[in-house]
């Protein structure tokens, strides 16, 4: 198997020795906005990424996340605002003058150079002698378990191996910030999942700042210390994975990260942060998110796994079971109530094997999040 060699565990001793010379730096976007001609790619954005953090930017394609990455790496000058790396203003500095290294989506390995030459290229650019830079390249190839492949051409390697070469090449220049532009998207599912843990462990050991761009929420949530969710050139929310999932700040984040049951309705009462909403299935109470007024149209979001069977919670809905889809450890129940579809995820077990056709769904006040309707318009 070609790729099994690729997922050999990464050696730890070398990386510690090597990583000791690397220091992560913080990255700050100060009112950065980017326009191409008439179209705005990135709205004015403030963002602070901490030194040594694994930070992901998650969003659908075209949301501006790659533009932000290319701005940090220096390929794009922001139209307004400035980028600071380690407190230093990067205005006017080209990509070859910044303490960043970028791993491209297609990896961009140099096809005419050997693997070792690829890894040594950044050192060549720094005027380091041939013998010395090839020795360093060999160390880095050991680090990514490719020390036998230095003389090969990138085209002779498997996808996972090429991935590692790209990582080694980027680490060779000892960057303070490593930028990754969806580098796993070309790999098959199994390898992708393996590379997630591997990337995370490399980051932990070298200790530099990783900024990871992806449209795959699984990747972002699994690897990152913090995640920024982007939509239409705007940062929707910056938070750690748990907060993002449990307390999405906007309906876009709520629906983009994980699954949601969405109800439309009108707010009838509002007290502190508890809102009552008149919906097709009756009055629902939940926690108010964002600026709401009585009489406003609103969206109520409930995660499938927060709904339980039986009438034990603040909100109860009688429903009819339409279908039952086995997912393995859990079961998805598709239910209908007053023309409204619900997905309910419950743990698999004997209790859910023989369910009646008519059942009650219920969810607590804390499980229903109420958002203003207008906020979804830019989702």
């Amino acid at each position, binding site marked *: 198997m070609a790729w099994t060699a690729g997922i050999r565990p990464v050696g730890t001793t070398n990386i510690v020795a090597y990583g000791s010379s690397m220091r992560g730096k913080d990255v700050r976007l100060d009112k950065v906005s980017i326009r191409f001609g008439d179209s705005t790619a990135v709205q004015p954005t403030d963002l602070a990424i901490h030194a040594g953090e694994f930070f992901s930017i998650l969003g659908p394609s075209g949301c501006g996340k790659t533009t932000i990455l290319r701005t940090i790496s220096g390929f794009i000058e922001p139209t307004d605002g400035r980028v600071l790396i380690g407190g230093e203003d990067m205005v006017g500095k080209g990509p070859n003058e910044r303490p960043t290294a970028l791993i491209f989506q297609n990896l961009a390995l140099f096809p*005419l150079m050997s693997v070792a030459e690829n890894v040594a290229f950044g050192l060549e650019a720094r005027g380091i002698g041939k013998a010395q830079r090839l020795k360093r390249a060999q160390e880095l190839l050991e680090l990514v378990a490719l020390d036998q492949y230095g003389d090969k051409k990138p085209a002779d390697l498997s996808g996972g191996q090429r991935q590692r070469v790209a990582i080694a090449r980027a680490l060779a220049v000892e960057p303070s910030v490593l930028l990754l532009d969806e580098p796993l998207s070309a790999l098959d599912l199994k390898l992708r999942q393996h590379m997630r843990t591997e990337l995370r462990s490399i980051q932990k050991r070298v200790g530099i700042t990783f900024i990871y761009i992806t449209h795959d929420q699984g990747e972002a949530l699994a690897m990152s210390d913090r995640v920024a969710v982007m939509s239409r050139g705007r940062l929707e929310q910056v938070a750690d994975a748990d907060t993002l999932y449990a307390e999405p700040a906007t309906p876009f984040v709520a629906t983009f990260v994980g699954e949601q049951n969405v109800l439309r309705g009108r707010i009838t009462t509002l007290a502190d942060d508890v809102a009552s909403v008149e919906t097709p299935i009756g009055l629902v109470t939940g926690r108010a998110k964002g600026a709401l007024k009585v009489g406003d149209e609103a969206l109520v979001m409930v995660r499938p796994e927060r709904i339980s069977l039986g009438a034990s919670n603040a909100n109860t809905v009688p429903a009819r079971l339409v279908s039952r889809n086995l997912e393995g450890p859990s079961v998805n129940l598709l239910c209908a109530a007053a023309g409204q579809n619900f997905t309910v995820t419950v743990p698999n077990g004997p209790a859910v094997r023989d369910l009646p056709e008519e059942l009650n769904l219920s969810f607590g006040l804390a499980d229903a999040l109420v958002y203003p309707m207008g906020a979804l318009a830019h989702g």
Partner: protein
Amino acid sequence: MSTATDSPGARLILNIYIGLFVLYLFLPLAVMSAAAFNSFDYPSVTQWRGFTLKWFVALANDQRLLQGLVNSVLVALGVIVVSIPAGLSGALILTRLGQRSGTVLYSVLVSPVLTPGIILGISSLIFWREFGVPGGLFVAVMAQSSFIASYAMLLFLARLQRQDRTLEEAALDLGASHTLVFRRITLPFLAPTAFTAAVVAFLQSFENYNTTVFAIGGEWTLVTEIASRLRFGLSPVINVVGVIFVVLTLLAATTYVLLKGKPKRA
């Protein structure tokens, strides 16, 4: 020799037509080659006076033709020196220009390809006389380069369109200077095309007559020398030159077919 979509009758007619066409292409060359071995001193195949190689000897002793050959090679090398950097610069700049300014520049750079060769020769002749340079090998190099550089540029442009721009970006990102990126990434990528362009430039220059005849002044190349001799009558020595060209071309073509015709691994 024809497509599966035509009826058998149409296919037959097309095949006969193609056969005649190939005959039209090759028969004159065969006739020209055969006459080189006829000892009759007017190049002919109908008046056969016996097989001879004496015209080959005559060519080997023909100082003007040999000097013409040397001059042709010199001019062709000069054309390579001028037109490859020019074509390369044009292509590199065009790929980075916006649509509007790019189109204007493109039109100017391609226009020599669409200009009759004699015009290029004449305008170069007049231009260089202003600097006191009379017609000769130098002016011939300049006149030919004006359009051969365009061909080179088109070859480079086609190659650049297939270039992965992220390779240059990756190199820059790793800290390389623009010069290093150019030397290590861009040039190696373009090297095969530069070779092709040099071969094309050499062949174009070597066989050029319409432009050269105006720019060459008192000097001569192999081709202009042959042309001026044809005014005074035909000689089998010219056929010998023809035979040499035919043999070289057939050798090159056979090599090409053998290389290309090999079944490729999937």
